């Protein structure tokens, strides 16, 4: 028999059904999850989202859970549900895009993800409601960003590129995600400095080689 999760994700997401958000890296097993798993959420107002999570979370305090909240005023808010001093589930709530090192994404891309989110029907206590996920284009784009950003450190991220290639192969029109990628990406801030540095180094190299 399948083991029941102690936290009912449907309970949490039913409570945020009226506010705009998008679940990033949606797991097909939703609302099931494994212990220690996290869920990333993009939203306009992270404190509004976090308050709804805490409101439902109060119920679980009676069942032996503790809640740890961190990075409330800065960055992305993390709300951890701990059971017997171990992280049982984490909500990672973003109001701004995280800073990427290998790719520069324009800040307002997060709003495009939320606005274009698609709905997926769920049920909680015999009531129908919707959760919101990034559109197919944004899903490919977010996977591509993750691949570019983390591939050097985590080669397993190649799975995202494989997924993108597989999707494009089966549905060639999806290649249009590249248009959106170009719209929302910028050159990194230090790009021109980098070019200048390389140019100066090359000039010095030729001077040394031919004149000294």
């Amino acid at each position, binding site marked *: 028999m399948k083991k029941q999760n102690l936290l009912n994700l449907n309970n949490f997401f039913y409570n945020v059904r009226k506010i705009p958000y998008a679940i990033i890296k949606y797991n097909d097993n939703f609302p099931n999850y494994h212990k220690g798993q996290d869920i990333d959420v993009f939203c306009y107002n992270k404190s509004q989202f976090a*308050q709804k999570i*805490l*409101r439902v979370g*109060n119920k679980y*305090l009676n069942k032996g859970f*503790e809640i740890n*909240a*961190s990075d*409330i*005023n800065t960055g992305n808010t993390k709300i951890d549900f701990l059971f017997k001093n171990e992280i049982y589930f984490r909500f990672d709530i973003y109001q701004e895009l995280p800073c990427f090192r290998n790719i520069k994404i324009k800040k307002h891309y997060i709003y495009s993800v939320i606005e274009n989110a698609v709905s997926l029907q769920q049920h909680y206590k015999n009531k129908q409601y919707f959760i919101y996920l990034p559109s197919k284009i944004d899903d490919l784009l977010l996977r591509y960003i993750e691949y570019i950003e983390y591939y050097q450190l985590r080669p397993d991220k190649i799975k995202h590129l494989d997924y993108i290639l597989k999707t494009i192969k089966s549905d060639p029109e999806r290649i249009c995600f590249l248009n959106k990628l170009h719209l929302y990406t910028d050159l990194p801030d230090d790009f021109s400095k980098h070019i200048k540095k390389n140019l100066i180094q090359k000039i010095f190299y030729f001077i040394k080689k031919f004149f000294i």
Partner: protein
Amino acid sequence: MKFLKTSKYGYFLIWAHGLSYRDKILKQIRNAKFIDILWLQRYNPKTMKRFIKVVYAYCDVPSYHLSAKTDYLLNIPSETFFIFFRNNDPDERYFGTGPFRLLQCARIKKLKEKLRNQYNPRKNGKRTEYHIIHASDNEVQVNFILRHLGYKNGIDFLKNKPNDNLLLPLFLPKFDAFKIKRINSSQLFCNILKGNINSFRTETIKIEKTPHYAFLFGDKTVYKNYINKFLGGPLRCDYNINNFSKLSRTMCYLRYPYSTSYIITKEIEPNKYLILDGLHRASILLFNKINSFPVVIK
């Protein structure tokens, strides 16, 4: 269109000759539904002359009028009481003409006049112009006076939100992380003031020994004396018997819309927690024989 409305911060200042009416004035201000009292402070200026200049520093009426209006204040004791508030429904209009034309909230002006009519000293049965109360006209004045009182951030102090996710009082410093845990009341302690308003110390005791807990068992004088003694001094939130009494009858801890209004504590020793905010609520829970409840640990 409720959500399009804006709020404004302001203050009332009770001069020394009105301090005997302080509780009555506070009661009337509390009854004004558009006002939330945020902060109370006693202040004894070193010299009234300088203090009057500070209070009227950003007042836009001609100075000859101000000096005539404030002359009587030079002869009263140097004791004042500030009531800082948030006006949730400002109705700003121009009053007066020529150099006396001023932008003021009509509701605040009306309340101020009502209080002056009631409590200003009387001569031959008529109200004198020796005003017992002054009200700010704009937020610049509030900012200036708060800085004068020693609040470096000025008006931002009144807008302080220590944490975006919890309902918290403005006096707590900002914090970025917390834990929510169910704890037993036997692990909870609180700080209680001892001494007098000019020379006080805090003592860490169990909730059962506080004036707040005694109040719930019917001993109202202990709590009333405690509040009267320290209000505006070390106690600067709007504590009062009526609110506490109402809270004790109606409180449902962490029920909507107060789902994130947790009792705030900090761990002072392993498994020993000091209440930073929420002693009234903790006393009520204990009085209702609820011995284990969730708290935020900073």
